[in-house]
């Protein structure tokens, strides 16, 4: 009897996992001092200096959804222990943009790795920012009205709850902690008791559980179920992965144009290249836009096409040919970045005092990205006023999928008379800082707009620049969004004769807030398909992804070609050869693309 008791005791001891406790300052025994207060989950609906509990976050999402009819809860599936995985569709009730196009959709995932508490706070922060700014008539309202956004604040709920159950405790070793606060994977075959060692290493890494590169990288994903990067029994074997894929279906797969999986830490946008030249270029550019929102403090890490690790960004990039990112939120290095001790893995524990700022910064970046992908800019409408009276009014209006330029008010303009020109765009065009129009990190400046009249009379054709030095982006008396309208005074040159003029067109060159130039032919409605914009013409009428100078706003139209003969006709660019998955490239053109991407990356990184 005594023997068996001893044996039982020894067996029990051997199954007890070594536990360590994070503290602020105490390093004695099994304590590990972070050098800052250990954040504990806080029960608060409203955002705080710190991290909220799962229950609070979940209630917060429901509370906001209840208060806003444009937030629709989506039941995406259940976790291993049958907890509902919620997504939230955020959009107005119609499916068309203000410019008359079909709305695109975007998907942002949070909380895939349990210990990365920054992620659910950031994604919840997006929802809260959209809620707070819903009627402020700027970027957020624009996103709500022109995009279908699906947010999943917490995908790996079971794992997240395990980390919150033990917010200051870990197992294994302080140098390489695994369970408790440092659980990364889901809870497959894991109980909730931290002290039982036999299961503390188990679970599936949901960011290795995805096609097309599932189980293709032996060094970076593993079939050993105790590995921190265990890929599971098959691609999308896990209910959380299936829920994420379901979210794409709910968002509208054919409309999807943006995906981000939100992680921490190392402060970088990782993104897989797919080999589709246009998609890859747009992806790099869009990363630059999101990085610009925080003065390039976030880095950029493209991953060349042809291989992968089974991550979700690869799944979305390759399945839908859309810009697809893994956002690793701050810190860059560790808790030492904030004055902490910099102990192993403390980058996963952002000090509570940094959370509010982090939430604001990640929101600003994500809003910029969503804004850029909702729709490209175009000149939708112009009004010309003499005094208070509108004497000329013309707008692009959509009918049966095409836009027509409709004259709503048409009085003759005369020479040497001062008029006010109001150009109205389909989206807010400039950043606001405390309601003042401001530059956006070098991508757009307040003064970055040029306007000229193109006048043809007989054989004589001239252009007359409009002095924009006293022009302004409107934050009052705008059309729908602050800065969607630009007002400037002008007069037509001496000798101008309306009846003797065969062509009077407004040439306009500017960009939206994120540096995207105008669609030069609004008659053809832009959209996103197969990894690039469609009907997004540049100055020469070519279908690129860059836009150009718009000359389509004609007050007097002689019926001449929008793009004169000396410029090429609209032609779809030739798609580059896409290498087979896993081939690693090989052709010279492919090598050239990689070099181009690397050069682009260097230039973006050097901006940081």
């Amino acid at each position, binding site marked *: 009897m005594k023997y068996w008791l001893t044996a039982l005791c020894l067996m029990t001891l051997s199954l007890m996992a070594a536990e360590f406790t994070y503290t602020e300052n105490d390093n004695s025994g099994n304590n590990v001092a972070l050098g800052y207060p250990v954040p504990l989950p806080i029960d608060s609906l409203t955002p705080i200096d710190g991290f909220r509990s799962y229950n609070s976050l979940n209630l917060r999402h429901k*509370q906001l959804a209840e208060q806003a009819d444009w937030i629709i809860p989506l039941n995406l599936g259940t976790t291993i222990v049958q907890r509902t995985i919620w997504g939230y569709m955020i959009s107005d009730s119609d499916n068309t943009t203000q410019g008359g196009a079909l709305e695109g959709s975007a998907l942002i995932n949070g909380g895939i790795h349990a210990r990365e508490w920054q992620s659910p706070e950031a994604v919840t922060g997006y929802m809260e920012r959209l809620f707070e700014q819903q009627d402020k008539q700027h970027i957020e309202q624009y996103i709500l009205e022109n995009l279908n956004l699906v947010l999943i604040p917490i995908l790996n709920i079971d794992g997240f709850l395990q980390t919150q159950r033990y917010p200051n405790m870990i197992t294994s070793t302080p140098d390489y902690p695994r369970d408790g606060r440092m659980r990364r994977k889901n809870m497959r075959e894991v109980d909730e008791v931290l002290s039982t060692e036999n299961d503390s290493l188990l679970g599936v890494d949901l960011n290795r559980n995805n096609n097309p590169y599932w189980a293709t990288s032996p060094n970076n994903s593993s079939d050993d179920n105790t590995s921190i990067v265990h890929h599971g029994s098959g691609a999308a074997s896990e209910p959380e992965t299936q829920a994420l894929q379901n979210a794409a279906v709910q968002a509208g797969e054919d409309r999807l144009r943006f995906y981000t999986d939100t992680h921490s830490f190392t402060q970088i946008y990782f993104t897989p290249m797919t080999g589709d030249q246009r998609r890859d270029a747009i992806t790099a550019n869009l990363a630059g836009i999101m990085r610009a929102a925080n003065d390039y403090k976030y880095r950029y890490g493209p991953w060349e096409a042809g291989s992968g690790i089974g991550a979700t960004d690869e799944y979305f990039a390759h399945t839908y040919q859309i810009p697809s990112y893994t956002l690793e939120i701050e810190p860059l290095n560790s808790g030492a970045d904030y004055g902490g001790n910099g102990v192993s893995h403390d980058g996963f524990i952002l000090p509570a005092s940094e959370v509010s700022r982090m939430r604001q910064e990640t929101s600003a970046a994500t809003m910029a990205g969503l804004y850029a992908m909702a729709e490209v800019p175009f000149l939708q409408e112009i009004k010309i006023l003499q005094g208070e009276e509108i004497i000329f009014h013309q707008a692009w209006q959509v009918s049966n999928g095409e836009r027509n330029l409709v004259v709503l008010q048409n009085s003759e303009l005369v020479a040497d008379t001062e008029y006010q020109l109001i150009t109205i765009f389909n989206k807010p065009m400039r950043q606001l800082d405390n309601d003042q129009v401001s530059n956006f990190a070098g991508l757009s400046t307040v003064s970055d707009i040029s306007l000229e009249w193109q006048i043809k009379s007989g054989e004589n054709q001239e252009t007359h620049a409009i002095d924009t030095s006293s022009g302004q982006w409107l934050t009052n008396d705008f059309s729908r969004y602050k800065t969607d309208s630009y007002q400037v005074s002008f007069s037509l040159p001496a000798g101008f004769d309306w009846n003797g003029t065969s062509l009077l067109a407004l040439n306009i060159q500017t960009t939206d807030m994120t540096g995207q130039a105008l669609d030069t032919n609004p008659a053809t409605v832009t959209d996103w398909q197969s990894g690039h914009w469609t009907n997004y013409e540049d100055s020469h009428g070519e279908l690129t992804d860059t836009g150009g100078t718009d000359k389509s706003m004609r007050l007097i139209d002689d019926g001449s070609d929008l793009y004169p003969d000396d410029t090429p006709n609209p032609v779809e660019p030739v798609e580059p050869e896409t290498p087979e998955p896993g081939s690693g490239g090989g052709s010279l053109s492919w090598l050239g693309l990689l070099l181009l991407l690397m050069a682009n990356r260097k230039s973006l990184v050097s901006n940081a």
Partner: protein
Amino acid sequence: MKTLLLPLLMLASFMLSATEVSHIQLSKAQAATSKLDINALTANTNQIAQALTDLNSPAASIMAKSLLLKGLRHTEPTAEQSAWVKEQLGSSDKLEIANPDHPRQKLELINIARQAKNTLFQWQVNKKSAQILASWTIQNWHWPEFLADPTEVDYRAVAQAIGSTDRQTVSWLQDLLTEQALKQASNRLLTLLIAEQVDNHLLNRLWTNPTDQYSYQMLQRIHTLLPAEQAIGQLKAASQQANLLSQSLLLLTKNFQRVPSAQNFLIEKLQQPQSSWHAAAALSQVSDKNLIRKIRHLADSSNSGAIQFAAQQLTLE
């Protein structure tokens, strides 16, 4: 030449810098260092170099240095110990592992120079803490002086001193703060003192100060520090602060939903426009039948969206 080059190469390979390890190498290094007598080595730093060489593994050597630096933090340093730690400030030794979040990045497990810095910092804290305790022993302390421009060392030293002193001294320090500088007291200091021993003056100050991480963390644990009715009183007081309102209501429902005074307060907040949605969300999860009855009764005669939301959620349950 060759004879000179070989030892140099061996030396270079052992003059450690960033060392990347696999999981197996990490386990082996942990096993190797577990055999070291860290206390003996910290007591006699002259033996450290030989002990590290004997480990015959760069990873184990870095890990051993890390353990030594941690062990030394609790000592009053000798000249030799101090010299050894300062020498480590210039070390480039780091232990890294592939970052599971992205294989091309490395996750830093140990950074010797940083740990040396931490040890030196802790010695400063220890020294200062001893001075503070000595001042308290002779009842010579001026909070306004401390609060004028406290450094991180000051705060950590005070925290360490508060943690190691007796309850009587803590009471004296709390009274002194109330008397001398309550309005200037930071939330960090208030929570340090409250955590040792609850003081209503300090708590009231904490709830009226601008909120920060310390306010939220203290409110979260208030029910563990006080008897029910007192904790409810503090939660009610904290709810006056807009940033603490939601947390107060959630904690009242989570910890005290069966107490009549808490129920009445929650029902009151449910009916006030500025708090109704927060109260509704908090109440949407209660299980107390009496409280559920009150909410449903209210919903029968109200068209408030928040009240209806709370009642609907309870119906669903």
